């Protein structure tokens, strides 16, 4: 028997500190696999967000830095513009990318920076204990929407992928999920393509990963993946939203 699947080289040995069942771990692995397969580990620089994945730099086995909450696109711009030969990506949660970082996200996309953005949409602020995020569903109860998100008071779930598709600077946008294995495999494909695009100089690629946050959702891991499938994806349908790289 041969070992056919195991921890990719682009992940360190450190155990991940995320809550049991958390989607971040899966997404980390997919990124690491894509980077290994493209042979770009030694020239990759990652920008970690402020969010649960701030600890990403403990796990990724390549150069990493952090950005103030919401500012990874600006930090990545600074890195990529001065180091066009490096592979630069940001890894950001929905609070980081779509709330406080809205301006940076939109303008980085609009400038068409040749970077890869991995956007982890888990419908709340994980790290701070489960407050409303821009992506929180209508009616969803969170720490700061105790009566459920009411669009008249708190607005509507922001569909970042669709929004960014309007900008001429964006080249490839796909929404994927990791609630079951087939979708994980599809997510991997999308992530790999998003890096491949950068390697080929094709420009800004954005992957929205619908993920699960069992602890702050107050659900077990199994309930969580079920909720993704049955509820979450209704508001955020999967698929390629834009692809001008072909």
């Amino acid at each position, binding site marked *: 028997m041969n070992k056919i699947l195991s921890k990719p080289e682009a992940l*360190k040995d450190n155990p991940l500190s995320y809550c049991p069942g958390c989607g971040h771990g899966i997404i980390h692995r997919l990124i690491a696999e894509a980077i290994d397969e493209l042979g770009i*580990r*030694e*020239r*990759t*620089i990652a*920008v*970690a967000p402020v969010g649960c994945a*701030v600890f990403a*730099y403990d796990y*990724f*086995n*390549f*150069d*990493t*830095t*952090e*950005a*103030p909450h919401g*500012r990874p*696109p*600006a*930090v*990545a*711009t*600074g*890195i990529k*513009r*001065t*180091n066009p030969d*490096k592979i630069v990506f940001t890894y950001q949660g929905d609070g980081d990318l779509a709330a406080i970082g809205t*301006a*940076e996200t*939109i*303008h980085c996309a609009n*400038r068409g920076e040749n970077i890869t953005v991995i956007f982890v949409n888990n419908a709340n602020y994980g790290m701070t204990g489960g407050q409303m995020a821009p992506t929180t569903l209508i009616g969803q109860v969170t720490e700061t929407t105790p009566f459920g998100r009411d669009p008249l008071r708190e607005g509507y779930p922001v569909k970042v992928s669709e929004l960014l598709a309007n900008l001429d600077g964006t080249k490839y946008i796909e929404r994927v999920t990791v609630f079951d294995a087939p979708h994980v495999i599809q997510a991997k494909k999308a992530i790999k393509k998003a890096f491949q695009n950068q390697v080929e100089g094709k420009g800004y690629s954005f992957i929205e990963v619908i993920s699960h946050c069992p602890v702050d959702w107050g659900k077990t891991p199994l309930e969580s993946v079920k909720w993704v499938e049955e509820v979450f994806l209704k508001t955020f349908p999967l698929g390629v939203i834009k692809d001008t790289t072909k």
Partner: protein
Amino acid sequence: MVKKLIKGNIALCEGALAAGLDAYFGYPITPQNEVPAYMSNKMVSLGKVFVQAESELAAANMVLGACATGKRSMTSSSSPGISLKQEAISYMAGMEIPGVIVNVQRGGPGLGNIAGSQADYFQAVKGGGHGDYRLIVFAPNCAQEMYEITYEAFDIAEKYRNPVMILCDGIIGQMMEPVEFNKEQKSSFSKKDWCLDGCKGREPRSVKSLLMKDGALEQHNLDLQKKYETIKNNEAKAELYHIEDAEIIIVSFGISSRISKNAIKQAREKGIKAGLIRPITLWPFPSEIIKKYAKPGIKFLSVELSLGQMIEDVKLAVNGVSSVDFLGRAGGGIVSDKEVLNKITELKK
């Protein structure tokens, strides 16, 4: 060497270019608009990086990113824009990123006006951002120094892995003076042993400020503090003028130091022994130099374009040994040599 008549803001650009600037990131604001305008032309022509960011916040974080890879990068703005950079500045300090930030100060608070001012002293020197950190703060007082200090700023920032602020004002930025380009062109990139340039042939690196493990952040702060002590010992700089026999010592930086100098000349003509200590670095503050001259009977006078900020550092240096008086103008007003002279005369009595 021939001198060129240029604006302080342009001299600053030339200093940065000579230092081998790799990337400029900025956002328009008066009275520093010449900087992004000039850089948008020069940097692109040189095949280097110019980005007009979507905001000052973004610009500061672009600098953070570029400098994390060991490149030389700078941003400039004026007071309200500098307030917006405070979070990034605190991060840069915590991450030990040698970014250069320029504040061409204008009148505040709030939107204020666009005249020159020195009322962001506290912000620059005491830390406008959160946490125990220090910027190295330079205060050029003429176009030539805008050129020379900016040129040096990058080296010092990298030497200590610490962000540097150049604190000037609308007057220094907007005025033209003859400048001699007396510095050698530096090449941009020198390999640094901490920066992010891909982990080929080495362990991956991480440049960050989050330190959650028990005691780790405290240790980091103590390490920073040690570094700050070294900087204090090495880098405090001041210009002394007619100081040896002075009975009245003006402490003044930037544009107001020049006006004070004129007033001192006039006072000397009247037989009043006045002198000047001009801090060139505001942090580290030249406290030791001031302390040396603080004696009973000697009168200090802090002259600032603010309602009294640096005076606290003068008082701390003097520590009650001499009296410390204040003369200042607020909200973009500028002190005249006559006002300074009058104050000197008054103190003489």
